[in-house]
């Protein structure tokens, strides 16, 4: 089976003992877990004053690494977001951008977000919304961060019903609340758990809305595979979750 990981990161997360990856070491690590393709964003863009330098470093460093598809981070709360989008969208490998509203201190209802979404639609780019990077109860003690509220995400999806959105880092109850309401939404499984995760989720959510995601290096890579490999879903559904849905969402398979 092919595995296409919807959520990986290069760089260093300063608040835990997880690995620090270059694109090359990340690709090798994922290959060791049987994952040959992955969307990747730079952790440096989370805390930097603006994500531009981290995005450019990612685009440069992934050029010679097979299997990693760069997903730059855009911060629409900064006045230069259009220029930044121009720069990253010029790279033909970029098919999606990632937003981190809770880390970058803006809400999804600001005007710049709607302007950004219109721009993405024109460029036929996809949007990844990062709901959480780690469990908010484990954030560094000096940081007071909450996950992206489902209510805000819901309002955005109502406003933009045709926009291809991947929600990354939803918990099980959040997934069950959102996915049936928005059949075009793709959700990654990085934080979704139940004792039989996929069998349980599939009772409420179609397989076509789910995507494998390891959230490497913050979470244990093997855990993502375990959810799929131990499931009893039909092979076609597992293949869809493992790679096909993400491929389609990126616009490389059938039209999403």
């Amino acid at each position: 089976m092919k595995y296409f990981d919807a959520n990986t990161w290069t760089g260093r997360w300063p608040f835990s003992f997880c690995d620090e990856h270059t694109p090359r070491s990340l690709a090798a690590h994922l290959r060791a877990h049987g994952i040959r393709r992955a969307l990747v964003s730079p952790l440096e863009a989370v805390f930097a004053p603006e994500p531009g330098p981290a995005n450019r470093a990612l685009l440069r460093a992934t050029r010679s690494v097979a299997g990693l598809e760069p997903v730059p981070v855009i911060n629409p709360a900064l006045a230069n977001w259009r220029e930044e989008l121009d720069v990253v969208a010029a790279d033909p490998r970029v098919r999606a951008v990632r937003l981190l509203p809770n880390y970058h201190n803006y809400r999804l209802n600001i005007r710049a977000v709607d302007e950004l979404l219109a721009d993405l639609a024109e460029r036929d780019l996809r949007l990844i919304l990062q709901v959480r990077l780690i469990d908010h109860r484990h954030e560094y003690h000096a940081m007071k961060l909450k996950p992206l509220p489902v209510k805000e995400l819901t309002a955005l999806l109502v406003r933009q019903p045709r926009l291809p959105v991947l929600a990354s880092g939803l918990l099980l109850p959040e997934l069950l609340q959102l996915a049936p309401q928005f059949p075009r939404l793709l959700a990654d499984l990085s934080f979704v758990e139940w004792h039989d995760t996929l069998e349980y989720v599939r009772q409420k959510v179609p397989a076509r809305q789910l995507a494998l995601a390891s959230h490497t290096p913050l979470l244990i890579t093997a855990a993502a595979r375990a959810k799929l490999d131990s499931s009893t879903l039909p092979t076609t559904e597992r293949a869809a979750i493992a790679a096909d849905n993400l491929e389609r969402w990126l616009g490389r398979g059938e039209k999403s």
Partner: protein
Amino acid sequence: MRIIDIHTHPVFRPDNLPGVGVAQLVRRARDHGICHLVALGDVLRFGRSPTEEQLVEINDETAALMRAYPDFITGFCHLNPTLGAEAVRREVARCVPLGFRGLKLEIANNARDACMAPVMAAAERHGLVLLQHAWSMTQIRQRRYHTDPEDVATLARRFPRVKIIMAHLTGCGVRGLQAVRPCPNVVVDTSGAAPEAGLIEYAVAQLGAERVLYGSDVPVRDFGVAITRITGSRLNAATKQKILYDNARALLRLP
């Protein structure tokens, strides 16, 4: 590979989600190589501070599981220390003859509270292990009734002859491991939150392989994911075997 899961809730009725089928959960556990599990009861079924009657109901469900799966399930008796010494004594005395081998404390009170004394006395008298829910309170700020790892350390120092399992490695984190490191009667289970990378290796480095036990916290966690916290780590095979099986076997005195 044989596995003992020290932290499960086979009967569980979470908000907005249906109850879990025990037979299905047991089948799933066996598929993952689990040969024994500890059932802790549906501990939040009646809220954080159950009455004596409600505790009886919770523990009777666990006892029924032990009868249904006698070689597979060991029960821990859920207690509410705030009900007082007599209530604690009565429920422990009722549960020990049913085969319970441990006590389970949730969030009725903080583990540093004086009401813990009768619980610890009962644990010592009957040779029971205590599994104490714990989580770092840095962000949660409910320490009045929620136990922080530092509170587990306080409890462990007051009652050094009682073996304590501090639940939720991931919730307790680095600071929690440092808090209990000097307490040889405290071991930690690997459950809690999403499978954050790097923590289990740190736990073994700080506590030693003998003081870390595999626990999943199913049904809210996936067996496969919980097991990969250990199998997907950088630990060597002998250490993994201790965490997944040997340590719990010795602690529960299983054959």
